[in-house]
């Protein structure tokens, strides 16, 4: 047993750290760190720099641009990326639809889509949830009826993150209404420019335009845009969700936030000194740091076990990472809000709330929006209640 990294792993850490800090523009990283809205271009710029280096889709199969890294290297890579406040490579592209196409798509689909997914030439969004199908995703109602070499799709998706920027949406649709729940679902790739696709913004609690409703009204989708077999979409969705949950703990992100809080606390006046002179506040920060250290080691244990697991099935231990990881992300935003104090009240310019990247900015302006927005992390990606159900069943056998 040895919890230390090898010299090779430490050298690898230094290499990726230097790259992130020297190559990804500082203004983009500052926005991530400060919790400001990123423009579409910021995501694209950052991901293309990574992709040019071969680092946008490191977890894909090597044949499609992945890196032959060990689980520990993958972990270090993501850690450093988040700690450098680099925008994550677009989740929907790199961690969701890309791996699904790489694993289950046709050769033609792989050739057509994968390079564009990796380079963010196409922006993808995730069309799984529906108004009536959230935690109970398999109850989804959007229908796809086969007409010759097309499907005709009717229904509604919701909570579609950054759908306003998307060129494509990957959807779960019902192709066999007679089959029982999970059995009649297929996985379709839909061009957002198709006639019949419309997008309505939903403004989230923090005042931003982050999610959308997507309406599908008699949308014609070529059969060649179905991934894998008809009515087998649920299997691919499970594969995708398993990918989504690894790394969901976002330990690097919380580390970055805590480091920033410690920095800002030294500049934030309190009484005759600063917030950092307040032993109680420091103890609260340390308390979160301790839990984060524990989670980091838990994450390493899960990573180490990955080598010997069937990667197509979700590891129930990842539910532990999801619960604790989301709680710690939220705890960090609570500390930031506390730090900002009464100066967290102003909402900045109304423009700041509407994704205007040039709006004037004080760090306190983002404290409340970040706190409010981060409530989502215990809801999406399988709510923390659902994760507890998973653990109760799969680990405790209750």
């Amino acid at each position, binding site marked *: 047993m040895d919890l230390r990294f090898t010299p090779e792993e430490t050298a690898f850490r230094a290499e990726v750290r230097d790259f992130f800090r020297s190559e990804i523009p500082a203004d983009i990283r500052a926005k991530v760190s400060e919790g400001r809205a990123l423009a579409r271009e910021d995501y694209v710029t950052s991901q293309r720099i990574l992709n040019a280096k071969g680092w946008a889709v490191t977890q894909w199969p090597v044949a499609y641009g992945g890196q032959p890294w060990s689980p520990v290297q993958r972990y270090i890579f993501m850690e450093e990326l988040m700690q450098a406040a680099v925008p994550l490579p677009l989740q929907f592209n790199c961690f969701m639809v890309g791996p699904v196409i790489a694993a289950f798509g046709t050769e033609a689909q792989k050739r057509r889509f994968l390079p564009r997914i990796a380079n963010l030439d196409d922006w993808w969004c995730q069309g799984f949830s529906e108004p009536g199908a959230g935690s109970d995703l398999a*109850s989804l109602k959007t229908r796809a009826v086969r007409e010759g070499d097309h499907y005709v799709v009717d229904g509604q998706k919701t909570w579609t993150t950054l759908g306003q920027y998307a060129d494509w949406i990957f959807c779960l649709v019902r192709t066999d209404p007679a089959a029982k729940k999970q059995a009649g679902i297929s996985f379709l790739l839909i061009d957002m420019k198709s006639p019949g696709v419309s997008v309505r913004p939903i*403004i989230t609690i923090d*005042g931003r335009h982050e999610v959308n409703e997507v309406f599908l009204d008699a949308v014609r989708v070529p059969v060649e845009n179905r991934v894998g077999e008809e009515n087998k979409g649920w299997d691919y969705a499970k594969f995708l969700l398993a990918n989504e949950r690894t790394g969901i703990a976002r330990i690097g992100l919380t580390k970055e936030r805590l480091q920033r809080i410690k920095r800002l606390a030294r500049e934030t006046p309190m009484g005759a000194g600063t917030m950092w002179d307040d032993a109680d506040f420091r103890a609260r920060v340390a308390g979160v740091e301790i839990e984060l250290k524990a989670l980091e080691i838990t994450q390493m244990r899960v990573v180490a076990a990955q080598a010997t697991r069937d990667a197509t099935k979700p590891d129930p231990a990842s539910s532990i990472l999801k619960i604790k990881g989301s709680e710690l992300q939220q705890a960090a935003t609570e500390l930031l809000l506390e730090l900002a*104090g009464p100066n967290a009240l102003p909402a900045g310019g109304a423009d700041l709330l509407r994704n205007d990247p040039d709006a004037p900015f004080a760090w306190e302006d983002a404290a409340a929006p970040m706190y409010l927005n981060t409530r989502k992390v215990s809801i*999406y990606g399988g709510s923390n*209640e659902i994760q507890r159900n998973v653990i109760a069943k799969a680990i405790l056998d209750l």
Partner: protein
Amino acid sequence: MDFDLTSEQRLLKDSVARWAADTYASLDRVEASRSEPLGFSEAHWAELAELGLLGLPFSEADGGFGGGPVETMVVMEALGRALAPEPYLASVILGGAALRLAGDAAQRARLIPQLAGGSLRLAFAHGERQARYDLEDVATTARPEAGGYVLDGAKGVVLNADAAGLLVVSARTAGGRREGAGISLFLVPTDTPGLTLRPYPTQDGGRAADVILRGVRVPSEALLGPADGALPIIEQVIDGAIAAVAAEAVGLMEALQDLTVAYLKTRKQFGTAIGGFQALQHRAVDMLVALEQARSMELYATMMVEAEAEARGPALSAAKVQINRSARFVGQQAVQLHGGIGMTQEYLGAHQFRRLTMIEILFGDTAHHLRRVTRAGGLLGAA
């Protein structure tokens, strides 16, 4: 022990509740008021005047209605329940208390009828950006000159200052920035030369402003209360405001609890109402426990708000700690139990959560008030 309202207090409660329910029956109505230039509806303000609410806490001799802490609690609860955006807190509770506690007969006679009638609004311009929650931390200065004073400095996050005709401004007439003695209060009309407002929306959909004072000249009659000795008054004003937001928070939490329980009964997943899942039932129960703890401390705050400073301070701080903790738990869990819908501005519950979050910060956060209670040796007396 008597937790009952008198028949007059019950009448008051019913009439405010009826007004609030009629006026703010839906989130759309709240949003419509908020979208007016000052962030609320002047017409609604006039209705509050007609109902007698704007003069409520002032003595009848001064032209008010002689209401006490219980009456204020009843009103604030109802306004909180309705998420009413009117600046009742800023003008009647904060500004009004300063005038009530510190004003001389002439000032009260001149201003209270205007306040009660709705033609004048106040704002309480005390906090400064560097002060955090420390009430004695005042850098703004007031230099005496012949016939009056000259004010210089900046006040941060003054609630509803853009809706006020008259500001109650604290400034140093003596002493260093963090000294208790040497602070005075002044009545400053917002159109006084040298006074600039920088208004903005707040995170809960309300409004506030930074107030910049550059060589602002006011006459001697503008002094409100004793020169150099305003800190005890400021403390009393803020303790009163804590009791008021405690009541507002309880109203908000009640409404949010009701909304959440109703949602648990109607939202179906896995072929059944999600309220059937025991995990969620227990969470809703914990929310109720938090709400009831908050309600008890709301009553405690109301009972103690007119006590002597020595007993009042720790009591109000204790109440604020409980209110803050309950507000956070109830707010967070309400959003969680709603799932995605709780995360959107299209949903009333999200707005209630935002307001509760801001109430946590207003007049001192949990850490601040816990420190005050600790410094006072707790609530139980010597060990």
